[in-house]
Structure formats: structure tokens, C-alpha cells
């Protein structure tokens, strides 16, 4: 079927992908012979590209703390992480000392044994790691080039201002999806996001901090499971959305691997 004329609406609909395929093909044929209309379509497409060029950087900006704080408590005058801490249940279930999970068979039993409110000085780390995990969108992260994790080491080290290596967890079944550097109280923090073989997200949060060598500790932040620890100058938190025994075991295995690779 030949095309006699094309309306403004149809030129726009072509740009916006709103035409059915048959009509789209007809109009594209029409444009080949009607340069004025073709030019208009090109201009509209350039407008769209220009809008993205102007505003897409915003997608990669950190979410303002005031906005995140809305997810915690609607109070002002306290740090956003504290507002969130007030609304999130933070529990230490027990140190995983000796690399075991004894006494942590399930939440209820753990509740009778070793559950305690998280000490105040680790709450901030827990909240930051948990929030970073929840709001991480891989689209907005620095993604690894295949087989080039060294480049990623360099990227993170540049932005952290000190050497930080990406943990290599492929042999544990975790694939690196991306990383980013986030603002934290005492300077930048790094976050690495991995996916396990079922696609479930696991993230590692690392920040510089004068610390005193806490052993790997299992904690709960709302629905999230977390293992955290620190060495002399850094704190680490490994977070996943798991609640069952197998999930915790897998997370601990990964945390131990990270400990072995990154901690001194």
C-alpha cells in the first residue's frame, strides 16, 4: 500500500515507536522520498538524544540523604543513617568465631541464645551497608570488562585514594556485576555487587576506619543477613537477602573468602 500523506502525529509516533510494524515500514519508505519530513524526524530524534545528554548524569548521582531518610524515620536533626537505624531492627546474632555457625540454626533458636542489639558503634556501618545493598542498581554502577578485573581494581583504588582490590569470588559461584564508590562519614566507601548462580544479589561494603579487629560477626538488619568484620584500618560488611540456613552458610563462605583476600 502506498502512502499519500503522513500526519504530524504519525511522524511523532514513528520517533516514539508507537506505530504498528506495517505502518512503520510504510512511513519509513515515505521518508526516503520526502526529505523535509525525514529531516523533521531526525530533528526530533536529536532532541531526545539531547535530553539524555543533558540529564542522564543525574541517574548516577547519589540519592540525597534527606530522601533516603524518608525510608527510616521522619525526624530531622539526626543523621540519616541514625534515622534509618531507629526504624530498622539491628541484631547481632553471634560471632561466627571458629568459622562456624553454631547456635544459629534458625532465627527463633538464635533468639534464645545469642541475639543482642547491635552495639551503637557498629550500627552506622550496618545501616550504611544495608542501605547501599537495598538501593544498589547495577545499571548505575561501574561494570567490569570481561576478564579485566585489574582495571576495576585501578578504578576503585583511584576513587578510594588507597589500594582496594576487588575480591575474586568466581570460584565460589559469585559473578561481579559492578562496583561503585559512595560517600561515607570518613571518606569514600566502596561497594561491590555480585550475583550468585540463581541471580540473587550479594554485596560487599568496604570503608576505611580505625578499628580494633572485630571477628566475623553475623547480624540481621530487617530482612537482610549480614556478616561484618574489621581489620586495623578497614571495616567490611557482606550483605544478602537471605534468611535460611543454606543462604547464611553460602554468605559466610563468601565472607571468609573476602576476609582471606582483603584483610590483613
Amino acid at each position, binding site marked *: 500500500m502506498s502512502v499519500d500523506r503522513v500526519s*504530524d*502525529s504519525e511522524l*511523532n*509516533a514513528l520517533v*516514539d515507536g*508507537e506505530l504498528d510494524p506495517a505502518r512503520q515500514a510504510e512511513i519509513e519508505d515515505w521518508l526516503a522520498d520526502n526529505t523535509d519530513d525525514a529531516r*523533521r524526524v531526525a*530533528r*526530533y530524534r536529536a*532532541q*531526545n538524544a*539531547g*535530553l*539524555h*545528554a*543533558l*540529564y*542522564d548524569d*543525574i*541517574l*548516577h*548521582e547519589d*540519592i*540525597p540523604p*534527606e*530522601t*533516603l531518610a*524518608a*525510608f527510616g524515620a*521522619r525526624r530531622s536533626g539526626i543523621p540519616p543513617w541514625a534515622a534509618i537505624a531507629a526504624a530498622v531492627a539491628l541484631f547481632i546474632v553471634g560471632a561466627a568465631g571458629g568459622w562456624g555457625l553454631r547456635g544459629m540454626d534458625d532465627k527463633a533458636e538464635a533468639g534464645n541464645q545469642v541475639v543482642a542489639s547491635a552495639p551503637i558503634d557498629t550500627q552506622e556501618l550496618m545501616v550504611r551497608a544495608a542501605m547501599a545493598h*537495598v*538501593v544498589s*542498581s547495577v545499571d*548505575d554502577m561501574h561494570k567490569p570488562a570481561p576478564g579485566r578485573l585489574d582495571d576495576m581494581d585501578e578504578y576503585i583504588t583511584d576513587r578510594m585514594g588507597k589500594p582496594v582490590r576487588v575480591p575474586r569470588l568466581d570460584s565460589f559461584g559469585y559473578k561481579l556485576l559492578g562496583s561503585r564508590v559512595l560517600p561515607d562519614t570518613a571518606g569514600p566507601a566502596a561497594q561491590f555487587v555480585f550475583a550468585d548462580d540463581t541471580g540473587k544479589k550479594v554485596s560487599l561494603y568496604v570503608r576505611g576506619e580505625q578499628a580494633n579487629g572485630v571477628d566475623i560477626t553475623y547480624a540481621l538488619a*530487617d*530482612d537482610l543477613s549480614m556478616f561484618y568484620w574489621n581489620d586495623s584500618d578497614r571495616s567490611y560488611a557482606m550483605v544478602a537477602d537471605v534468611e535460611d540456613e543454606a543462604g547464611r552458610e553460602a554468605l559466610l563462605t563468601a565472607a571468609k573468602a573476602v576476609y582471606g583476600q582483603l584483610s590483613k
Partner: protein
Amino acid sequence: MSTETKRQAVVAEIPRLRRYAIALMRDRTQADDLVNDVILRALDKLHLWREGTNMRTWLFTIMHNLHANEMRRRSRMLDVVPLDAAPQRAEAANQEAVVELSQLSDALGDLSGLHRQVLLLIGLEGMTYAEAAGVLDVPVGTVMSRLSRAREELRRRIDEGASTATIRRVK
């Protein structure tokens, strides 16, 4: 879907809500205030969000309504001072591209609010006509006619801006 999962779905839309609000209002402080209001309202009304429907368009609809209320409120105030808030961009190596983008930005700022909304929802956010019509609560035909006029208006203003810029360079 658990409340926590829904809240995470809200969080995931914040970058897009901010991008749209900043492009629409052309003022970061006001845009972030608007996004905060949207988030508070959305968390308050989270039980009203129906599973299986689009979280993004739901949030954009809330934003549109809050923004429209705010515009109505301001238009009733006598001492409205329009804010000139063109985004500041760093000097880029590609001067030509920067000139074009700044022309686009200026022209966008000159569009009416109704035209800017529809242009951003479709051209920047990539919504379908039906989605944009839902967010703006107008018929699809209205979206299409506004979009068509907005794009022509933008083209005309960019061309005018370009010819002015050329004259300035020649002088």
C-alpha cells in the same frame, strides 16, 4: 509482595524521579524537595499501590499531582519570583556539542510547563503515550497534540537560538 519489596521498588525509581523533576523544574533544590514529598506520600500510600501495576507510572502520577498543586498554590501568591536556574555545566572539550546542548536547555526552559512535561515523559523517560496520558490524567489524543506542538516549538526555538549565536560569532 512484601512491604519491604515494595519499598525497594520505590527506592529503585528515585534516580528517575530526580532526573525528571530536575529537568522539569530546572532547580535542584526545588526538585529534590518535590522528590522527597513524592517519597513520603508514596510510602504513606503504599498499601494503595496495586501489585502488577507499574510502580514507575504510579510514582510519576503522584509527582505530577503534587507538582500541579504546588504550581496552583504559587500562582495564587503575588510575590512569585521566577528562578533562573539553568543547569551549570563544566567546560567541555567539544565546544560545538556544548553550544547545542545549552541551546536545547534554553529552549526547553522557554517551553510552557505542559509542553515540557509531555516532552520529558516521552522523550526522556521513554514512556508510551498511554503511560504519559495516565500520569498526566489527560486523553492520549491530548498527549499526542501537546507532544507534536512541543517538538515543533523546541525545533523553532533552537533554530532561532542557533541563528542568534551565529550572528554573535560573526560580529
